[in-house]
C-alpha cells in the first residue's frame, strides 16, 4: 500500500519536451517511476526520452492508459493543463508550476468539483512513494523506504524532514508536497486523511507555514477522528513579520488561525506533537515512536 502513487502508476508529463519537463522526467525514469509518455501540443508522434509524445492528454490516456500526470506547463497555461488532464480522466494530477494567477485557480477548483481527479499542488514539489514512484522534483535518494508519511506545504523543508527521519533510523511511505499557493487542490487535512487510512503508514509528519487555516482544520480532524496515528508537526514562519504577505482583511476571514503561534497552539490542543525547531523533527518522531536513535 501507499497513497496517490505507486509502482503501478502510469505517469505522463505535461510539458514533456521542455527544459524542466525533460530534466525531471529523466530523473523520474532513473528513480524507477513508470513514465509512459508525455504531452506537448504540436509534437505528437515524436519520441522523447524513448517515450511517445502526444498532442493531447486524452491521446496519451487512450494509448498508454496513463492515470497520473505531472504538469510542468508555464504559469499562464497551467490552469488549462490541469483542466485538460481532469477532462481526460487522469486520477492524480500533480502540478509543479509556481506562479499561477489566483483567478485561474478559482476556476480550476470549480471545474474539478465535477470531476473525479485529485489535484496535488500547484507550486509544490510533488508526491513520492519511496522505492516505487517519484512524481515530482524532489531528490529521490533522500526518501528511504519506511513507515512515516509526510505532508508539507514546502519543498526543501520536506526533504529536510525526510532526511532527518531517515537519519533517525526510520523511513518514508509517501511524502505529499501539497504546495504553498493560496488555493491548492488537496488540503493538509485531505492529505493527512489519506495517510491515516494507509495501513502501511504508522505515523505522520505534518509541516505547515503561516497563512490560511488548513493546518488548524487538519488538526481538528485528527482529534475528531481519535488521533489514530502519532503526528509530529512543525509550522514555519514563527518569526515572519505580520502583514508582509497577507492583507489584513484576509486575516479576518481566516480567523485567528493564521499565525504560526496560533496554528501550533491548536495543533498541540488536538494532540499533535509540535516541535518549535525544525532541526528536531526526526529525533522527535523517534521519541514519539519509542525508538532509540543511533
Amino acid at each position, binding site marked *: 500500500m501507499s497513497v496517490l502513487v505507486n509502482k503501478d502508476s502510469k505517469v505522463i508529463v505535461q510539458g514533456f519536451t521542455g527544459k524542466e519537463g525533460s530534466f525531471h522526467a529523466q530523473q523520474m525514469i532513473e528513480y524507477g517511476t513508470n513514465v509512459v509518455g508525455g504531452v506537448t501540443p504540436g509534437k505528437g508522434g515524436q519520441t522523447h526520452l524513448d517515450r511517445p509524445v502526444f498532442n493531447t492528454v486524452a491521446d496519451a490516456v487512450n494509448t498508454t492508459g496513463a492515470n497520473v500526470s505531472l504538469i510542468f506547463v508555464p504559469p499562464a497555461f497551467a490552469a488549462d493543463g490541469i483542466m485538460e488532464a481532469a477532462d481526460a480522466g487522469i486520477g492524480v494530477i500533480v502540478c509543479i508550476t509556481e*506562479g499561477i494567477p489566483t483567478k485561474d485557480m478559482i476556476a480550476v477548483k470549480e471545474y474539478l468539483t465535477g470531476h473525479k481527479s485529485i489535484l496535488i499542488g500547484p507550486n509544490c514539489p510533488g508526491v513520492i512513494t519511496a522505492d516505487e514512484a517519484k512524481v515530482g522534483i524532489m531528490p529521490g535518494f533522500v526518501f528511504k523506504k519506511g513507515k512515516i508519511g509526510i505532508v508539507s506545504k514546502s519543498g526543501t523543508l520536506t526533504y529536510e524532514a525526510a532526511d532527518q527521519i531517515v537519519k533517525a533510523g526510520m523511513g518514508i511511505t509517501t511524502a505529499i508536497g501539497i504546495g504553498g499557493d493560496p488555493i491548492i487542490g488537496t488540503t493538509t487535512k485531505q492529505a493527512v486523511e489519506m495517510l491515516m487510512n494507509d495501513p502501511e503508514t504508522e505515523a505522520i509528519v505534518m509541516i505547515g507555514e503561516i497563512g490560511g487555516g488548513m493546518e488548524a482544520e487538519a488538526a481538528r480532524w485528527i482529534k475528531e477522528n481519535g488521533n489514530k496515528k502519532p503526528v509530529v508537526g512543525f509550522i514555519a514562519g514563527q518569526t515572519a513579520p505580520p502583514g508582509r504577505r497577507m492583507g489584513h482583511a484576509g486575516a479576518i476571514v481566516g480567523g485567528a488561525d493564521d499565525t504560526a503561534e496560533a496554528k501550533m497552539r491548536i495543533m498541540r490542543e488536538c494532540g499533535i506533537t509540535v516541535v518549535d525547531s525544525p532541526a528536531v523533527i526526526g529525533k522527535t518522531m523517534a521519541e514519539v515512536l519509542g525508538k532509540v536513535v543511533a
Partner: protein
Amino acid sequence: MNIHEYQGKEILKSYGVAIQEGILAHTAEEAVEAAKKLKEQTNTPVWIVKAQVHAGGRGKGGGVKVATSLDAVKEKAEAMIGMTLVTPQTGPEGKLVRKVLIAQDVYYEGASKPLEFYVSVLLDRAKGQNVIMYSTEGGMDIEEVAHNTPEKIFKEAIDPKVGLQAFQARKIAFNLGLSGEALKNMVKFITSLYTAYDAIDASQFEINPALKTSDDKIIAVDAKVNIDDNALYRHPAIEAMRDKDEEDATEVEAAEFNLNYVKLDGNIGCMVNGAGLAMATMDIIKLSGGEPANFLDVGGTADAARVEQAFRIILKDPNVKAILVNIFGGIVRCDRVAQGIVDAYHNMGNINVPIIVRLQGTNAVEAKAIIDNSGLKVKSAIQLQEAADAVKEVLAGV
C-alpha cells in the same frame, strides 16, 4: 502588488465605481493648480490634502488634512510633501511623502446625513472563492470592529460559476440599511466594484470608507487596491503603476537579481534555498538566541555569482553580525554550492562577519571538506542542529 490611493481610484472609476474626485500633486504649486482645477470640475468649497504612501492609517499620522482656502492648500501640501509620515502601519521609521492627492469634499450637508460604510473584496482561501465583506462601521479600524462587534461584519460569497448576482448586491445594500436612491446607488457601486476586482486580477480591495453622501450617492472615499503578482503579466498598464520608491531599496535590488528577499530587523542574515526552509531557518536563528535580519530564498541555483549577489544584498544591512547559509542540496550538488561560496568569498574579499554554512544533501561531506579546507573564516555544518549550535556560538562571541 500595492498601488496608491489615486491609482486605485483611477482604476475603479474606469469600471464605473463612483469615487471622491481628486488630482495628484508633487509640489505645493501643483497642489494649488490642482485645487483650482478641482473647484472648476466639482465646485468643492474646501479641499482634502491626502498623503500618497503605501500605508493605511494616514489620518492618524497627520497624512490627511482639510484646507479651506487655496493658501491653506499650499501651506498644507508644502508641510506634507517631504514629511516622514508615521502611521500604525508604517512602523516607527515612517514613510517619506513624495506626492499628495488634492481631493474634493464629500461630507457636504444636504437632505440626509452622510453615512460611512466598510466594503472589501478578498479571497476566502478555504472555500476557494471571492467574498465581499462589508459593515455599517465604516471609517474605523476593521480589525477592531471584527474583534469587538463581529456581528456587525457581513460576508457575501461569490459563486465562481456565475459571479456576483443582482440579488446579492441588493442584499448588501439592504443589510447596510439603505433605501430609495441610496439603495440603487449601492447596488451599482457593489456591482461595478466586483466587476473591477475580477477584471484586473485583484487580490484585495478595501474601500474604507465607502460613503453615502447627503444626496444619496455612494462613493469610494479611500481605495486600497492590491493586485495578484502572478497575474501582472496580463495587466501591463497596472504593472506600470508600480512605485519602487514605496518599496525597500534593497528588496527592489534583490528582485532584479531574482532573489526573493525580505528585510527584517534582526542581527543574523540568512541565505536559504526554498521558501519554507527559509522561514524555518529564520525560526532556528530566533531559537538560537538571535533575530533574523532577513528572509532570502535563492531558489534552485546557488553558483558563485548568485551566492555573491546574495551576500552583497544581505551585507547592505549594517545590523548583520553573522550570516547563516542553509542549503538542502537535492538536485543541486552541495560541493558545487560550497565552491560557489568559497569563490564568492574570495571575490568579495571584505566580508567582516562570521559565516556559518550548512550544506546537507548530495555530496554534503565533500562540501564540508571544501569549506573546512578553504582557510576562510567560515564554520561548516551538515546537520541542521549543528548549524543552530554554531549560531549560538557566534552570538556568544559577538
